[in-house]
């Protein structure tokens, strides 16, 4: 299997959180294999791109702890445990509870002290624009609102790492714009990793784009760096889409 990155664990320059996937491999029973993957995530917004089945969700499951790597390790540079908040593609919410009750429960799950919970919940609700629906039943929320609640539960405990799998799905244009603002804010406080199928959307918020293909790292760099890979005859309507198609069509050994 081709190795795409060096195997040395990077150290943070300024004490900021750093998430390192060190030679991580995860094999599913179906035969699908993610990795070997060596990637370092810094403070900021990293966007994971890739076609269906590329391994985006698997990567998130591995980072969140749902799946244990078959080999390799996931570490913070100073070897401390990272706190993680995760919004999967298809989360299940406790429909009979209210958003406030649900978020207080999530705070309890993550060990937020009782005295800090109310403020944490209010902050999260405010960030995703659900403060006025805090006391309504979750089942009465629209699909887009539930998506925003999902984001709130991923950030309510101020985690070091926030994983958002397709966070914009179901959001109307206005809330997509608002979401970009929230994501940029979050990127200043945490290692924010999100996935999307929308390449141009990714470049708008991502400090760094990561392209997965067949469980392998196909590209890692800025939006501008990705755009520079575009070939004229590649599929796509925009330079980034063409670049994305170009990266995916490249043989594994030539990718970086």
């Amino acid at each position, binding site marked *: 299997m081709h190795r795409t990155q060096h195997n040395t664990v990077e150290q943070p320059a300024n004490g900021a959180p750093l998430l390192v996937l060190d030679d991580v491999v995860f094999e*599913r*029973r179906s035969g699908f294999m993610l990795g070997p993957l060596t990637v370092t995530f810094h403070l900021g917004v990293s966007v994971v791109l890739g076609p269906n089945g590329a391994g985006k969700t698997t990567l998130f*499951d591995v980072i*969140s*702890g*749902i*799946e*244990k790597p078959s080999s390799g390790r996931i570490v913070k540079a100073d070897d401390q*445990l990272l*706190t*993680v*908040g*995760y*919004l*999967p593609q*298809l*989360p*299940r919410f*406790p429909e*009979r*509870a209210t958003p406030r*009750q*649900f978020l*207080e*429960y*999530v705070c*309890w*799950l*993550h*060990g937020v002290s009782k005295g800090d919970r109310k403020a944490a919940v209010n902050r999260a609700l405010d960030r995703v624009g659900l403060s006025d629906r805090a006391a309504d039943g979750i089942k009465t929320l629209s699909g887009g609102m539930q998506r925003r609640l999902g984001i709130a*539960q991923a950030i309510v405990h101020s*985690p070091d790492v926030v994983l958002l799998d397709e966070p914009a799905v179901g959001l109307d244009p206005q809330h997509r714009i608002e979401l970009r603002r929230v994501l940029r804010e979050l990127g200043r406080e945490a290692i924010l990793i999100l996935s999307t199928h929308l390449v141009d959307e990714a470049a708008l918020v991502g400090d760094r784009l990561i392209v997965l293909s067949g469980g392998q790292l196909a590209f890692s760099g800025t939006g501008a760096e990705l755009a520079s890979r575009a070939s004229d005859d590649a599929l796509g309507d925009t330079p980034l889409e063409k670049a994305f198609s170009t990266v995916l069509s490249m043989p594994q050994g030539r990718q970086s």
Partner: protein
Amino acid sequence: MYDVRTLFGPWVSIVILGAYAANLTQRGAPWRGDPLWSVEWLAITLFVVGPLVSAVSAVDAARLARPDGAYLIAPTRRRRRVFIRALLFCVVPAIGIHLFAYLLTLTFGHALSSLGDVLLGAAVLVQALSILWFGLLGSLLGRVLPVALAGLVGGVAAFSAIYALGLGSGGAARFALLNLGGASVPQIGLRYNTVYLLLQTTLFVLALMLFLAAPIKYREGRQSISPVAIPLGLFVVAVICASLLGPSDRKFVGPPIRPDNCHGVSPTICLYSEQSRVAASVDGSLRRIVVAAKSKGYAALAPERIEQRTSAYWPPRSVAWSLRVDPADVRKIAWVQEHAMPGLLLPDCEVLRSPEPPPARYLTDMRDLIATWSVVAGLPPVEDRGVVLSPAQVAQILDRWEECDL
């Protein structure tokens, strides 16, 4: 409030409350005044509560363990506590209701003074721990089962456990973890076996520790089976060892306790003070038939001393005649002929304890003796009157019975 809205566990308390209410109001609450019987009587409800708690805990655990809910649990450092919290919302109210029901039985039985009885307290603790155990069983199974199956499997597993580790093992005269009581007849004059209760407590605590130690692991989004199978397997081994090495009797230990509340002469009638509620009625009825027999020349039917009998205490007829007293029966009109007379006349013979039916002659003799005693005491005729015997015939039958020549 979140848990009340999202879990089934807290709501099962309503059903449990109904089960205890039904239990405590059955048959005129004959357990009143007998603290040990109160504890045993309460245990009858556990045959319903156990499977119910197990089933509901399994459903709640299965709902928490669903793959689409893993995003909440997997990233936390409190994976186990999620399941413990859900379990507690089911078992704590159930245990609370059980303890409250126990307090009610003591209050209505005017036996609150027995709250200080350590062995009774230990027996109630074992029952409370059993409710926790049923919850643990369901919760463990629920982790690895789909929601649709979890409740059914949890309930069936609990019923099976009750049979395998309780009812079904009773006949084998071995230690049985889920021998929690359930007596519907008086348990007066008995006491609990400390070793038995300690062993039950130890096993329940072991189950709790194994549950707490079982890690929550995921594989392909679902919870791994091994963290569930290993503690269950270890627990089964522990239970098997305990059943082989543990004591066989949960009660009936130590020297039999004799009835301590004695009144009158010729006959002197001794009952247990716990049943003072019915003592006057029993004493009056017995004295009447004995005095009548004596006055009409049936000396063989006029013992000098009558004592209340238990499953542990049965005095030889040379010391005292004896009978069991069930307060639920004393209220019946024909109690003297249907319960008191047969009880007093019953010989202490092994053949009558065997599963084989007693000899036909014995049954005829018993019928004739009761008929005779009824006539002598001026009681209304029994349905199957039998033959009225002479004093000599009565004495002859009782002499034969004394030798277990039935």
